[in-house]
């Protein structure tokens, strides 16, 4: 794992949903670290379990979902051992979360001020006057002009980008140590996306917090993250620092993701999509989850699930190719870097 001190260590986290069709393992043994002051990106397709992982960290999973096991250590303390009441003191205070849709993440019937004051009221017991003062400071911090006027406005009077700024102000009101951003820019247009990512980065430096950035956009990862965990079907398949991941991806799934991404710095004839689709939860392969779509898969891959192993340089891979048991072509090249245009 990383050499830095970790603020959050998730080990073997398992979250399932118990539906009428049986148990759906949305998160199935997820392990990762968030080094203090750094940004971890969690990347994956829809349904890979990245949002459920985030919700599990804050224990916001509701019926019929359940956290079945594992460990979520925040500052050395296992969050899963805490009572609901103790957990409430952590939510919004030490760990905060921002959501994908700024249009629906704010209650349309309360003013911006009332909603930001909520954080101060819950965690610091501040009244309206003091709360408003702090709320104005927060709005200033997230770059909202004339915050005094904004305080009495309703969410529908603000643009999407503004609303996301308000969401960030709410989440950061109590200066948390860890911010979980669940696709914070997906619903915004491209220019606003860049602004919001920039803002999160600035605030991270200013407040010294760590960030978990959940996204399906590798562009966002490249721009903002220090470390990346790639998820597929409820499992982490590759964990690496961002430079290594983009320069030398090792897991066939990561390689597939990168190949299906248009890049401006490479000569690229055409994009290569990953063949097939994500398997549905009730017909999950017994071996490696990615085996049915993997161009290198052997009978070993189809029969046995590989474990998440260290491969040096703080990198972890869940793939048979990098183990001694590999029975396919020993010289297999999962990733061949294409020539860059800059030479």
């Amino acid at each position, binding site marked *: 794992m990383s050499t830095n001190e970790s603020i959050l260590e998730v080990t073997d986290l398992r979250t399932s949903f118990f539906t009428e069709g049986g148990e759906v393992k949305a998160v199935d043994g997820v392990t990762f670290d968030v080094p203090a002051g750094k940004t971890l990106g969690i990347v994956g397709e829809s349904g890979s379990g990245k949002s459920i992982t985030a919700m599990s960290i804050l224990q916001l999973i509701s019926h019929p979902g359940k956290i079945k096991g594992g460990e979520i250590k925040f500052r050395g303390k296992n969050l899963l051992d805490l009572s609901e009441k103790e957990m409430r003191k952590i939510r919004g205070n030490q760990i905060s979360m921002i959501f994908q849709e700024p249009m*629906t993440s704010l209650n349309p019937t309360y003013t911006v001020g009332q909603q930001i004051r909520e954080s101060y009221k819950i965690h610091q017991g501040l009244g309206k006057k003091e709360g408003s003062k702090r709320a104005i400071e927060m709005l200033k911090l997230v*770059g909202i002009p004339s915050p005094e006027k904004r305080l009495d406005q309703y969410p529908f009077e603000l643009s999407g980008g503004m609303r996301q700024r308000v969401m960030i102000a709410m989440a950061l009101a109590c200066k948390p140590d860890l911010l979980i951003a669940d696709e914070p820019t997906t619903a915004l247009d491209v220019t606003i996306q860049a602004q919001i990512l920039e803002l999160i980065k600035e605030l991270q430096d200013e407040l010294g917090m760590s960030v978990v950035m959940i996204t399906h956009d590798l562009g966002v990862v490249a721009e903002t993250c220090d470390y990346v965990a790639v998820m597929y079907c409820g499992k982490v398949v590759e964990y690496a620092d961002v430079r290594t991941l983009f320069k030398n991806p090792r897991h066939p799934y990561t390689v597939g993701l990168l190949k299906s991404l248009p890049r401006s710095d490479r000569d690229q004839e055409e994009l290569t999509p990953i063949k097939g689709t994500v398997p549905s939860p009730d017909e999950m392969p017994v071996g490696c989850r990615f085996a049915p779509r993997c161009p290198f898969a052997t009978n070993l891959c189809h029969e046995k699930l590989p474990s998440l192993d260290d491969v040096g340089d703080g990198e972890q891979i869940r793939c048979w190719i990098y183990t001694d048991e590999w029975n396919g072509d020993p010289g297999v090249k999962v990733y061949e870097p294409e020539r860059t245009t800059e030479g």
Partner: protein
Amino acid sequence: MANQNIEQNTDHSEVELQAMNVKKPSPWKDFYKRLKRNKAALIGFYTIVFLSIVSIVGPFLLSMDPSDVDVINKFSRPSAEHWFGTDHMGRDIFTRIVYGMKYTLGVGFGSVFLGAIMGVPLGIVAGYYGGRIDNFIMRLIDILLAFPGILLALAIVSILGGSLVNVTIAVAIYAIPGFARIVRGSTLAAKKLEYVDAIRALGSSDLRIIFKHILPNVSSPVIVNATLYIASAILTAAGLSFLGMGAQPPMPEWGAMLNDGRDYIFDAGYIAFFPGMAIVIVVLAFNIFGDGLRDALDPKLKN
């Protein structure tokens, strides 16, 4: 780049601020404006207001007492002296109807209020917590629903004894399932809203979420349901009194008066006619007002 953005945003905000200066109608005015479009609902609304005022002020303006027996003038036809005539004991029917108004409205509002007080929390708890709690509560509600309304009320009144208060309680118990079901449904929808997740992620307690974010979302179906239920509560109460299980004589309750007039319906029909009409008018007023209210409170039907 950041500075530029802020400048742009400032320009933007000026436009927004100007837009802000356009006066926003208050929620009440807005609501009344939409209600006004439905003429029938408006008539229902004013009828209810008028009757409520009459039930409070009326008794002070009348010279007669509802229990004044005037045997010489029994069975008088409607006249200038006795507007709606007198009954078999010579009591003035108009006076009795005015005095009876407060019982009718009292049973209507009282039972619905009681029913809502019990049904709304049940529905919220069932919808919000889900799982076994939901199952337990909703199966109890199903059991309640398995009895036909008037039969359940009859059973309760025969256990508790016949009086107007007991009728109110009986009708209230029958109102619980309606409220619980409607509220559970709205809570299920409200719980899934992203801002409820967001506020939970901020560390809000369940109670706080329920009161500040769920309750406002379920309030409009509750109000509509309550208004419509008042009408049927009044009918049920009048029915029970008609059967002799509710208001006891000489209370001027409309259902009981209807029963009094039953024996003379062919010779002196007005004894039953006026209380009957009174019930029809009140029930109709609540029904058309409730319908209009539903349209007015539905944001999808705005404009």
